[in-house]
Protein backbone atom coordinates (compact mmCIF):
# COMPACT_ATOMS: atom_id res chain seq x y z
CA UNK A 1 0.00 0.00 0.00
CA UNK A 2 1.42 3.38 -0.98
CA UNK A 3 -0.56 5.39 1.53
CA UNK A 4 -0.89 4.44 5.17
CA UNK A 5 -4.51 4.22 6.23
CA UNK A 6 -5.95 6.45 8.94
CA UNK A 7 -9.35 4.84 9.09
CA UNK A 8 -10.35 1.38 7.99
CA UNK A 9 -13.92 0.33 8.63
CA UNK A 10 -14.93 -3.27 7.95
CA UNK A 11 -18.64 -4.11 8.01
CA UNK A 12 -19.19 -1.72 10.90
CA UNK A 13 -22.75 -2.14 12.15
CA UNK A 14 -24.87 -0.63 14.92
CA UNK A 15 -28.32 -1.87 15.86
CA UNK A 16 -30.69 -0.35 18.38
CA UNK A 17 -33.23 -3.10 19.05
CA UNK A 18 -34.52 -4.14 15.65
CA UNK A 19 -33.45 -0.86 14.06
CA UNK A 20 -30.17 -0.99 12.12
CA UNK A 21 -28.79 2.54 12.33
CA UNK A 22 -25.53 1.70 10.58
CA UNK A 23 -25.66 -1.26 8.25
CA UNK A 24 -22.31 -2.92 7.58
CA UNK A 25 -20.30 0.01 6.27
CA UNK A 26 -16.81 -0.59 4.90
CA UNK A 27 -14.41 2.07 3.69
CA UNK A 28 -10.86 3.31 4.00
CA UNK A 29 -9.51 6.80 4.55
CA UNK A 30 -5.91 7.56 3.68
CA UNK A 31 -3.55 9.64 5.79
CA UNK A 32 -3.82 13.33 4.98
CA UNK A 33 -7.06 12.87 3.10
CA UNK A 34 -10.09 15.16 3.44
CA UNK A 35 -12.97 12.71 3.58
CA UNK A 36 -16.52 14.06 3.30
CA UNK A 37 -19.07 11.94 5.11
CA UNK A 38 -22.47 12.90 3.73
CA UNK A 39 -25.99 11.66 4.18
CA UNK A 40 -29.52 12.86 4.74
CA UNK A 41 -30.80 13.52 8.28
CA UNK A 42 -31.23 10.15 9.92
CA UNK A 43 -29.02 8.24 7.47
CA UNK A 44 -26.74 7.11 10.31
CA UNK A 45 -23.82 9.54 10.05
CA UNK A 46 -23.73 10.56 13.69
CA UNK A 47 -23.96 6.95 14.89
CA UNK A 48 -21.13 5.95 12.56
CA UNK A 49 -19.03 8.89 13.73
CA UNK A 50 -19.64 8.03 17.39
CA UNK A 51 -18.43 4.49 16.75
CA UNK A 52 -15.34 5.60 14.84
CA UNK A 53 -14.38 8.01 17.60
CA UNK A 54 -14.66 5.31 20.26
CA UNK A 55 -17.77 6.70 21.96
CA UNK A 56 -20.17 3.94 20.98
CA UNK A 57 -19.52 0.20 20.68
CA UNK A 58 -20.37 -1.39 17.35
CA UNK A 59 -22.87 -4.26 17.34
CA UNK A 60 -20.67 -6.04 14.83
CA UNK A 61 -17.87 -5.36 12.42
CA UNK A 62 -14.55 -3.72 13.19
CA UNK A 63 -12.49 -0.66 12.52
CA UNK A 64 -8.96 0.62 12.88
CA UNK A 65 -8.69 4.34 13.57
CA UNK A 66 -5.37 6.19 13.83
CA UNK A 67 -3.62 2.81 14.02
CA UNK A 68 -5.69 1.47 16.92
CA UNK A 69 -8.31 -1.22 17.00
CA UNK A 70 -11.77 0.01 17.87
CA UNK A 71 -12.65 -3.09 19.83
CA UNK A 72 -9.66 -3.26 22.15
CA UNK A 73 -8.07 0.19 22.09
CA UNK A 74 -10.88 2.74 22.09
CA UNK A 75 -9.13 4.81 24.80
CA UNK A 76 -6.02 5.00 22.61
CA UNK A 77 -8.20 6.15 19.75
CA UNK A 78 -9.68 8.96 21.84
CA UNK A 79 -6.17 10.21 22.65
CA UNK A 80 -5.16 10.26 19.02
CA UNK A 81 -8.13 11.93 17.42
CA UNK A 82 -9.61 15.40 17.57
CA UNK A 83 -13.34 16.11 17.53
CA UNK A 84 -15.37 19.23 17.04
CA UNK A 85 -19.01 19.82 16.28
CA UNK A 86 -21.20 22.80 15.62
CA UNK A 87 -23.13 22.19 18.80
CA UNK A 88 -20.49 21.63 21.41
CA UNK A 89 -16.95 22.73 21.22
CA UNK A 90 -15.76 25.33 23.72
CA UNK A 91 -16.78 26.50 27.17
CA UNK A 92 -18.56 29.80 26.64
CA UNK A 93 -17.97 31.14 30.13
CA UNK A 94 -14.24 30.55 30.02
CA UNK A 95 -11.81 32.95 28.39
CA UNK A 96 -10.12 32.05 25.12
CA UNK A 97 -6.82 31.23 26.82
CA UNK A 98 -8.60 29.32 29.59
CA UNK A 99 -10.24 27.08 27.02
CA UNK A 100 -6.86 26.38 25.45
CA UNK A 101 -5.37 25.72 28.88
CA UNK A 102 -8.27 23.40 29.78
CA UNK A 103 -8.11 21.27 26.65
CA UNK A 104 -4.31 21.24 26.75
CA UNK A 105 -4.56 19.82 30.27
CA UNK A 106 -7.07 17.17 29.22
CA UNK A 107 -4.77 15.98 26.46
CA UNK A 108 -1.80 15.87 28.83
CA UNK A 109 0.26 18.67 27.33
CA UNK A 110 2.96 20.22 29.52
CA UNK A 111 2.67 23.86 30.64
CA UNK A 112 5.48 24.75 28.27
CA UNK A 113 3.71 23.03 25.35
CA UNK A 114 0.44 24.75 26.18
CA UNK A 115 2.19 28.13 26.28
CA UNK A 116 3.86 27.60 22.92
CA UNK A 117 0.73 26.19 21.29
CA UNK A 118 -1.41 29.04 22.62
CA UNK A 119 0.88 31.69 21.18
CA UNK A 120 1.10 29.96 17.82
CA UNK A 121 -2.65 29.40 17.64
CA UNK A 122 -3.68 32.90 18.66
CA UNK A 123 -1.25 34.30 16.13
CA UNK A 124 -2.45 32.00 13.34
CA UNK A 125 -6.07 32.89 14.01
CA UNK A 126 -5.36 36.59 14.46
CA UNK A 127 -6.86 36.32 17.92
CA UNK A 128 -3.84 37.73 19.76
CA UNK A 129 -5.82 40.62 21.20
CA UNK A 130 -8.65 38.38 22.40
CA UNK A 131 -6.81 35.93 24.69
CA UNK A 132 -8.73 37.29 27.69
CA UNK A 133 -12.09 37.53 25.95
CA UNK A 134 -14.90 35.26 27.08
CA UNK A 135 -15.63 32.75 24.33
CA UNK A 136 -19.28 33.75 24.64
CA UNK A 137 -18.44 37.24 23.31
CA UNK A 138 -16.58 36.00 20.23
CA UNK A 139 -18.38 36.07 16.90
CA UNK A 140 -19.55 32.59 15.88
CA UNK A 141 -17.08 32.30 13.02
CA UNK A 142 -14.09 33.03 15.26
CA UNK A 143 -15.42 30.64 17.84
CA UNK A 144 -15.59 27.85 15.27
CA UNK A 145 -12.06 28.52 14.02
CA UNK A 146 -10.83 28.54 17.62
CA UNK A 147 -12.72 25.30 18.34
CA UNK A 148 -11.03 23.68 15.37
CA UNK A 149 -7.59 24.74 16.52
CA UNK A 150 -8.31 23.58 20.06
CA UNK A 151 -9.40 20.19 18.72
CA UNK A 152 -6.01 20.07 16.94
CA UNK A 153 -4.07 21.07 20.07
CA UNK A 154 -2.64 17.60 20.72
CA UNK A 155 -1.65 17.07 17.06
CA UNK A 156 -4.16 14.27 16.48
CA UNK A 157 -3.60 12.14 13.41
CA UNK A 158 -7.32 12.18 12.59
CA UNK A 159 -9.82 14.99 13.19
CA UNK A 160 -13.59 14.45 13.14
CA UNK A 161 -15.64 17.52 12.23
CA UNK A 162 -19.40 17.29 12.62
CA UNK A 163 -21.05 20.10 10.65
CA UNK A 164 -18.33 22.52 11.68
CA UNK A 165 -19.49 25.45 9.54
CA UNK A 166 -23.26 25.51 10.21
CA UNK A 167 -24.59 29.08 10.28
CA UNK A 168 -21.17 30.63 9.73
CA UNK A 169 -20.86 33.59 7.31
CA UNK A 170 -19.51 32.80 3.84
CA UNK A 171 -16.14 34.48 4.28
CA UNK A 172 -15.42 32.77 7.60
CA UNK A 173 -16.66 29.48 6.13
CA UNK A 174 -13.91 29.76 3.50
CA UNK A 175 -11.34 30.68 6.13
CA UNK A 176 -12.41 27.61 8.05
CA UNK A 177 -11.90 25.43 5.01
CA UNK A 178 -8.48 26.95 4.53
CA UNK A 179 -7.64 25.73 8.06
CA UNK A 180 -8.85 22.27 7.00
CA UNK A 181 -6.76 22.31 3.83
CA UNK A 182 -3.73 23.43 5.75
CA UNK A 183 -4.16 20.70 8.38
CA UNK A 184 -4.55 18.05 5.68
CA UNK A 185 -1.49 19.43 3.91
CA UNK A 186 0.49 18.82 7.12
CA UNK A 187 -0.68 15.19 7.14
CA UNK A 188 -3.75 15.31 9.40
CA UNK A 189 -6.63 13.19 8.18
CA UNK A 190 -9.91 15.11 8.09
CA UNK A 191 -13.26 13.36 8.42
CA UNK A 192 -16.02 15.92 7.93
CA UNK A 193 -19.82 16.11 7.66
CA UNK A 194 -21.68 19.07 6.19
CA UNK A 195 -25.02 20.19 4.82
CA UNK A 196 -23.35 22.69 2.50
CA UNK A 197 -23.04 20.88 -0.80
CA UNK A 198 -20.35 23.22 -2.12
CA UNK A 199 -18.19 21.97 0.75
CA UNK A 200 -18.62 18.41 -0.48
CA UNK A 201 -16.72 19.53 -3.58
CA UNK A 202 -13.75 20.58 -1.42
CA UNK A 203 -13.19 17.04 -0.17
CA UNK A 204 -10.71 14.61 -1.73
CA UNK A 205 -13.29 11.84 -1.53
CA UNK A 206 -16.88 11.74 -0.43
CA UNK A 207 -19.17 8.99 0.81
CA UNK A 208 -22.95 9.30 0.80
CA UNK A 209 -24.98 7.33 3.34
CA UNK A 210 -28.56 6.33 2.64
CA UNK A 211 -30.59 4.38 5.22
CA UNK A 212 -27.53 3.23 7.14
CA UNK A 213 -25.51 2.04 4.14
CA UNK A 214 -22.82 3.73 2.09
CA UNK A 215 -24.51 4.16 -1.24
CA UNK A 216 -21.66 5.89 -3.07
CA UNK A 217 -17.99 6.62 -2.42
CA UNK A 218 -15.58 8.36 -4.77
CA UNK A 219 -13.93 11.66 -5.62
CA UNK A 220 -16.44 14.46 -6.25
CA UNK A 221 -15.42 14.59 -9.92
CA UNK A 222 -16.00 10.86 -10.41
CA UNK A 223 -19.34 10.95 -8.59
CA UNK A 224 -20.58 13.80 -10.73
CA UNK A 225 -19.52 11.86 -13.85
CA UNK A 226 -20.96 8.54 -12.66
CA UNK A 227 -24.37 10.01 -11.95
CA UNK A 228 -24.23 12.19 -15.07
CA UNK A 229 -25.08 15.41 -13.20
CA UNK A 230 -23.42 18.80 -12.75
CA UNK A 231 -22.67 19.16 -9.06
CA UNK A 232 -22.35 17.24 -5.81
CA UNK A 233 -25.67 18.75 -4.76
CA UNK A 234 -27.31 16.91 -7.68
CA UNK A 235 -25.55 13.66 -6.76
CA UNK A 236 -26.71 14.02 -3.17
CA UNK A 237 -30.32 14.71 -4.04
CA UNK A 238 -30.38 11.85 -6.52
CA UNK A 239 -29.11 9.35 -3.93
CA UNK A 240 -30.80 10.68 -0.80
CA UNK A 241 -34.21 10.68 -2.47
CA UNK A 242 -34.01 6.90 -2.43
CA UNK A 243 -34.11 6.93 1.37
CA UNK A 244 -37.12 5.21 2.82
CA UNK A 245 -36.62 5.85 6.50
CA UNK A 246 -36.84 9.05 8.54
CA UNK A 247 -34.66 10.21 11.42
Amino acid at each position, binding site marked *: MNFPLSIESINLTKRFGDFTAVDSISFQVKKGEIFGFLG*ANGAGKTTAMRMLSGLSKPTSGSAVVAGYNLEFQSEKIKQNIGYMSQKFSLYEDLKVKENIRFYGGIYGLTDQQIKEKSEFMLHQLNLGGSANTMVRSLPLGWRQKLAFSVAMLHDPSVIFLDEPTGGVD*PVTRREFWQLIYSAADRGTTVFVTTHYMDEA*EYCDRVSIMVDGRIEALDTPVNLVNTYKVKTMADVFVKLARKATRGE
Partner: protein
Amino acid sequence: MHKSPIVVDGISKSYPVGKEKVNAVTNISFIVNPGEIFGLIGPDGAGKTSLFRILTTLLIPDNGNAYVEGFNTVNDYHEIRKIVGYMPGRFSLYQDLSVEENLSFFATLFNTSLEENYDLVKDIYNQIEPFKKRRAGKLSGGMKQKLALCCALIHRPHVLFLDEPTTGVDAVSRTEFWTLLRKLQDQSITMMVSTPYMDEASLCDRVALIQNGNILDIDTPKEITNKFENPLWAFRSDQMYKLLLDLQQMDNVIACYPFGQHHHVVLHQDQDVPEILDQLKAKGQTNLKAEPGIVTIEDCFMQQMRK
Protein backbone atom coordinates in the same frame (compact mmCIF):
# COMPACT_ATOMS: atom_id res chain seq x y z
CA MET B 1 -51.77 53.49 7.48
CA HIS B 2 -49.22 51.53 5.50
CA LYS B 3 -50.54 49.28 2.78
CA SER B 4 -47.52 47.02 2.62
CA PRO B 5 -47.83 43.79 4.61
CA ILE B 6 -44.54 44.50 6.38
CA VAL B 7 -42.93 47.87 7.01
CA VAL B 8 -39.74 48.18 9.03
CA ASP B 9 -38.79 51.77 9.70
CA GLY B 10 -35.50 52.56 11.39
CA ILE B 11 -35.55 49.65 13.81
CA SER B 12 -32.71 49.22 16.32
CA LYS B 13 -32.36 46.71 19.13
CA SER B 14 -29.50 46.00 21.49
CA TYR B 15 -28.98 43.42 24.22
CA PRO B 16 -26.72 43.53 27.25
CA VAL B 17 -23.92 40.96 27.07
CA GLY B 18 -22.07 41.04 30.38
CA LYS B 19 -21.30 44.71 30.99
CA GLU B 20 -21.43 45.61 27.32
CA LYS B 21 -24.25 46.38 24.97
CA VAL B 22 -24.37 44.49 21.70
CA ASN B 23 -26.40 45.83 18.80
CA ALA B 24 -28.50 43.06 17.28
CA VAL B 25 -29.99 45.29 14.59
CA THR B 26 -28.96 48.85 13.79
CA ASN B 27 -31.34 51.30 12.12
CA ILE B 28 -32.85 48.83 9.68
CA SER B 29 -35.58 49.79 7.21
CA PHE B 30 -37.34 47.82 4.47
CA ILE B 31 -40.76 47.12 3.01
CA VAL B 32 -42.21 43.77 1.94
CA ASN B 33 -44.73 43.82 -0.91
CA PRO B 34 -48.04 41.89 -0.92
CA GLY B 35 -47.66 38.22 -1.86
CA GLU B 36 -43.89 38.35 -1.87
CA ILE B 37 -41.45 35.76 -0.56
CA PHE B 38 -38.96 38.06 1.10
CA GLY B 39 -35.68 36.48 2.19
CA LEU B 40 -33.45 37.56 5.05
CA ILE B 41 -30.10 36.10 4.12
CA GLY B 42 -27.27 36.14 6.61
CA PRO B 43 -25.15 34.13 9.03
CA ASP B 44 -25.91 33.39 12.70
CA GLY B 45 -25.79 36.55 14.76
CA ALA B 46 -26.73 38.81 11.84
CA GLY B 47 -29.90 39.99 13.61
CA LYS B 48 -32.44 37.91 11.70
CA THR B 49 -34.21 36.44 14.72
CA SER B 50 -34.44 39.82 16.47
CA LEU B 51 -36.27 41.20 13.44
CA PHE B 52 -38.67 38.26 13.46
CA ARG B 53 -39.36 38.69 17.14
CA ILE B 54 -40.01 42.41 16.73
CA LEU B 55 -42.36 41.86 13.79
CA THR B 56 -44.28 39.11 15.58
CA THR B 57 -44.72 41.46 18.60
CA LEU B 58 -42.59 39.34 20.93
CA LEU B 59 -39.85 41.94 21.32
CA ILE B 60 -40.01 45.72 21.63
CA PRO B 61 -37.45 47.66 19.57
CA ASP B 62 -35.24 50.31 21.23
CA ASN B 63 -35.89 52.68 18.34
CA GLY B 64 -37.98 52.86 15.21
CA ASN B 65 -41.37 51.48 14.23
CA ALA B 66 -42.56 48.34 12.54
CA TYR B 67 -45.95 47.60 11.00
CA VAL B 68 -47.65 44.43 9.86
CA GLU B 69 -50.60 45.10 7.56
CA GLY B 70 -50.64 48.64 8.90
CA PHE B 71 -50.72 47.63 12.56
CA ASN B 72 -47.98 48.92 14.82
CA THR B 73 -46.05 46.07 16.42
CA VAL B 74 -46.02 47.78 19.84
CA ASN B 75 -49.46 49.39 20.08
CA ASP B 76 -51.55 46.99 18.01
CA TYR B 77 -49.87 43.72 18.97
CA HIS B 78 -53.25 42.14 19.64
CA GLU B 79 -54.37 42.64 16.04
CA ILE B 80 -51.10 41.45 14.61
CA ARG B 81 -51.16 38.18 16.53
CA LYS B 82 -54.43 37.27 14.83
CA ILE B 83 -53.15 37.72 11.31
CA VAL B 84 -49.62 36.38 11.38
CA GLY B 85 -48.21 32.88 11.45
CA TYR B 86 -44.78 32.36 13.01
CA MET B 87 -42.46 29.40 12.72
CA PRO B 88 -39.57 30.08 15.09
CA GLY B 89 -36.08 28.76 14.42
CA ARG B 90 -36.18 26.43 17.37
CA PHE B 91 -38.81 23.68 17.13
CA SER B 92 -41.53 24.92 19.45
CA LEU B 93 -44.43 22.53 19.18
CA TYR B 94 -45.51 20.27 22.00
CA GLN B 95 -43.19 17.27 21.77
CA ASP B 96 -45.48 15.16 23.97
CA LEU B 97 -48.57 15.77 21.87
CA SER B 98 -49.21 13.81 18.71
CA VAL B 99 -49.24 15.38 15.28
CA GLU B 100 -53.03 15.73 15.22
CA GLU B 101 -53.16 16.94 18.82
CA ASN B 102 -50.70 19.71 18.04
CA LEU B 103 -52.74 20.73 15.03
CA SER B 104 -56.05 20.77 16.87
CA PHE B 105 -54.47 22.64 19.80
CA PHE B 106 -53.23 25.47 17.58
CA ALA B 107 -56.49 25.49 15.63
CA THR B 108 -58.48 25.84 18.86
CA LEU B 109 -56.35 28.80 19.98
CA PHE B 110 -57.55 30.63 16.88
CA ASN B 111 -61.15 29.42 17.09
CA THR B 112 -60.82 27.35 13.97
CA SER B 113 -60.25 23.74 12.93
CA LEU B 114 -58.14 21.73 10.54
CA GLU B 115 -61.24 21.03 8.44
CA GLU B 116 -62.04 24.72 8.03
CA ASN B 117 -58.71 25.54 6.41
CA TYR B 118 -58.02 22.16 4.91
CA ASP B 119 -57.55 23.47 1.35
CA LEU B 120 -54.72 25.69 2.56
CA VAL B 121 -52.69 23.03 4.36
CA LYS B 122 -53.67 19.87 2.49
CA ASP B 123 -50.44 19.59 0.45
CA ILE B 124 -48.38 19.74 3.60
CA TYR B 125 -50.79 17.79 5.77
CA ASN B 126 -50.90 14.94 3.26
CA GLN B 127 -47.19 14.38 3.85
CA ILE B 128 -47.49 14.18 7.64
CA GLU B 129 -50.88 12.47 7.83
CA PRO B 130 -49.39 8.95 7.88
CA PHE B 131 -47.77 9.93 11.21
CA LYS B 132 -50.74 11.72 12.73
CA LYS B 133 -50.78 9.49 15.84
CA ARG B 134 -47.05 9.88 16.40
CA ARG B 135 -45.75 12.25 19.06
CA ALA B 136 -44.18 15.37 17.59
CA GLY B 137 -40.94 14.71 19.47
CA LYS B 138 -40.54 11.40 17.63
CA LEU B 139 -40.76 12.86 14.13
CA SER B 140 -37.78 13.25 11.79
CA GLY B 141 -36.35 16.73 11.22
CA GLY B 142 -38.07 17.15 7.88
CA MET B 143 -41.42 16.01 9.27
CA LYS B 144 -41.15 18.28 12.33
CA GLN B 145 -40.57 21.16 9.99
CA LYS B 146 -43.67 20.32 7.95
CA LEU B 147 -45.81 19.96 11.06
CA ALA B 148 -44.55 23.33 12.35
CA LEU B 149 -45.45 24.91 9.02
CA CYS B 150 -48.89 23.33 9.16
CA CYS B 151 -49.46 24.69 12.69
CA ALA B 152 -48.29 28.16 11.65
CA LEU B 153 -50.83 28.12 8.80
CA ILE B 154 -53.80 26.65 10.63
CA HIS B 155 -55.56 30.03 11.15
CA ARG B 156 -55.01 31.15 7.55
CA PRO B 157 -52.59 34.00 8.38
CA HIS B 158 -52.08 36.92 5.98
CA VAL B 159 -48.39 37.11 6.72
CA LEU B 160 -46.16 34.15 7.48
CA PHE B 161 -42.84 34.50 9.32
CA LEU B 162 -40.41 31.61 8.91
CA ASP B 163 -37.18 31.87 10.88
CA GLU B 164 -34.55 29.54 9.43
CA PRO B 165 -36.99 26.77 8.55
CA THR B 166 -34.30 24.82 6.65
CA THR B 167 -31.32 25.10 8.99
CA GLY B 168 -29.68 21.76 9.72
CA VAL B 169 -32.02 20.07 7.29
CA ASP B 170 -30.52 18.01 4.48
CA ALA B 171 -30.52 19.15 0.86
CA VAL B 172 -33.44 16.93 -0.15
CA SER B 173 -35.82 18.11 2.59
CA ARG B 174 -34.75 21.69 1.91
CA THR B 175 -35.78 21.42 -1.73
CA GLU B 176 -39.14 19.91 -0.77
CA PHE B 177 -39.78 22.66 1.77
CA TRP B 178 -39.19 25.41 -0.77
CA THR B 179 -41.60 23.74 -3.17
CA LEU B 180 -44.24 23.95 -0.43
CA LEU B 181 -43.55 27.65 0.14
CA ARG B 182 -43.91 28.37 -3.56
CA LYS B 183 -47.31 26.69 -3.53
CA LEU B 184 -48.41 28.79 -0.57
CA GLN B 185 -47.61 31.88 -2.56
CA ASP B 186 -50.51 31.01 -4.84
CA GLN B 187 -52.78 31.52 -1.81
CA SER B 188 -51.59 35.16 -1.67
CA ILE B 189 -49.82 34.78 1.65
CA THR B 190 -46.90 37.14 2.16
CA MET B 191 -43.84 35.39 3.52
CA MET B 192 -40.70 36.56 5.26
CA VAL B 193 -38.18 33.75 5.50
CA SER B 194 -34.62 33.71 6.80
CA THR B 195 -31.83 31.34 5.89
CA PRO B 196 -28.09 31.01 6.33
CA TYR B 197 -27.92 29.05 3.06
CA MET B 198 -27.04 31.55 0.35
CA ASP B 199 -28.18 29.20 -2.42
CA GLU B 200 -31.75 29.53 -1.15
CA ALA B 201 -31.72 33.27 -1.85
CA SER B 202 -32.47 32.66 -5.51
CA LEU B 203 -35.78 31.05 -4.46
CA CYS B 204 -37.04 34.35 -2.98
CA ASP B 205 -38.65 37.21 -4.89
CA ARG B 206 -36.52 39.77 -3.10
CA VAL B 207 -33.85 39.40 -0.47
CA ALA B 208 -32.10 41.48 2.15
CA LEU B 209 -28.49 40.50 2.76
CA ILE B 210 -27.87 41.05 6.45
CA GLN B 211 -24.69 40.96 8.53
CA ASN B 212 -23.89 42.26 12.03
CA GLY B 213 -27.27 43.95 12.34
CA ASN B 214 -26.90 45.91 9.11
CA ILE B 215 -28.46 45.42 5.72
CA LEU B 216 -25.80 45.08 3.05
CA ASP B 217 -28.20 45.15 0.11
CA ILE B 218 -31.87 44.68 -0.73
CA ASP B 219 -33.03 43.69 -4.20
CA THR B 220 -34.21 40.83 -6.37
CA PRO B 221 -31.66 38.00 -6.43
CA LYS B 222 -31.08 38.67 -10.12
CA GLU B 223 -30.40 42.37 -9.63
CA ILE B 224 -28.03 41.67 -6.76
CA THR B 225 -25.90 39.37 -8.89
CA ASN B 226 -26.11 41.77 -11.86
CA LYS B 227 -24.65 44.50 -9.68
CA PHE B 228 -21.45 42.53 -8.99
CA GLU B 229 -18.75 45.06 -9.75
CA ASN B 230 -15.65 43.10 -10.78
CA PRO B 231 -14.81 40.37 -13.25
CA LEU B 232 -15.28 36.96 -11.63
CA TRP B 233 -13.38 33.93 -12.88
CA ALA B 234 -13.49 30.27 -11.96
CA PHE B 235 -10.11 28.52 -11.78
CA ARG B 236 -9.20 24.92 -11.26
CA SER B 237 -6.13 22.70 -11.48
CA ASP B 238 -4.73 19.40 -10.24
CA GLN B 239 -3.63 20.92 -6.94
CA MET B 240 -6.53 22.94 -5.62
CA TYR B 241 -5.06 23.93 -2.24
CA LYS B 242 -1.80 25.14 -3.76
CA LEU B 243 -3.79 26.95 -6.43
CA LEU B 244 -5.73 28.75 -3.72
CA LEU B 245 -2.58 29.86 -1.92
CA ASP B 246 -0.87 30.89 -5.18
CA LEU B 247 -3.84 32.95 -6.35
CA GLN B 248 -4.30 34.63 -2.98
CA GLN B 249 -0.72 35.91 -3.16
CA MET B 250 -1.11 37.62 -6.54
CA ASP B 251 -1.28 41.40 -6.74
CA ASN B 252 -3.96 41.61 -9.43
CA VAL B 253 -6.26 39.27 -7.50
CA ILE B 254 -8.74 41.07 -5.22
CA ALA B 255 -10.05 37.90 -3.62
CA CYS B 256 -9.82 34.17 -4.16
CA TYR B 257 -11.87 31.58 -2.31
CA PRO B 258 -13.00 27.98 -2.84
CA PHE B 259 -16.34 27.77 -4.57
CA GLY B 260 -17.69 24.31 -5.33
CA GLN B 261 -15.58 22.62 -7.98
CA HIS B 262 -13.60 25.81 -8.65
CA HIS B 263 -11.89 28.65 -6.91
CA HIS B 264 -13.66 31.92 -7.55
CA VAL B 265 -11.25 34.71 -8.34
CA VAL B 266 -12.27 38.37 -8.21
CA LEU B 267 -10.10 40.50 -10.50
CA HIS B 268 -9.58 44.15 -11.34
CA GLN B 269 -9.99 43.46 -15.05
CA ASP B 270 -10.42 40.51 -17.42
CA GLN B 271 -7.16 41.29 -19.17
CA ASP B 272 -5.28 40.01 -16.17
CA VAL B 273 -6.28 36.38 -16.79
CA PRO B 274 -3.61 35.33 -19.36
CA GLU B 275 -0.89 36.86 -17.21
CA ILE B 276 -2.19 35.08 -14.11
CA LEU B 277 -2.28 31.77 -15.98
CA ASP B 278 1.36 32.25 -17.03
CA GLN B 279 2.39 33.00 -13.49
CA LEU B 280 0.56 29.93 -12.19
CA LYS B 281 2.18 27.69 -14.80
CA ALA B 282 5.57 29.04 -13.76
CA LYS B 283 4.70 28.00 -10.19
CA GLY B 284 4.22 24.43 -11.42
CA GLN B 285 0.42 24.27 -11.71
CA THR B 286 -0.79 21.59 -14.09
CA ASN B 287 -4.10 20.98 -15.85
CA LEU B 288 -4.94 24.61 -15.25
CA LYS B 289 -8.33 25.86 -16.40
CA ALA B 290 -9.93 29.29 -16.14
CA GLU B 291 -13.38 30.29 -17.29
CA PRO B 292 -15.71 33.21 -16.54
CA GLY B 293 -17.43 32.42 -13.24
CA ILE B 294 -21.15 32.57 -12.58
CA VAL B 295 -21.85 35.22 -9.96
CA THR B 296 -24.02 33.95 -7.10
CA ILE B 297 -25.59 35.68 -4.10
CA GLU B 298 -22.78 34.28 -2.00
CA ASP B 299 -20.16 36.04 -4.14
CA CYS B 300 -22.12 39.27 -3.71
CA PHE B 301 -22.43 38.76 0.03
CA MET B 302 -18.70 38.29 0.32
CA GLN B 303 -18.03 41.35 -1.83
CA GLN B 304 -20.24 43.41 0.48
CA MET B 305 -18.39 42.00 3.50
CA ARG B 306 -15.05 43.11 2.04
CA LYS B 307 -16.24 46.73 1.88
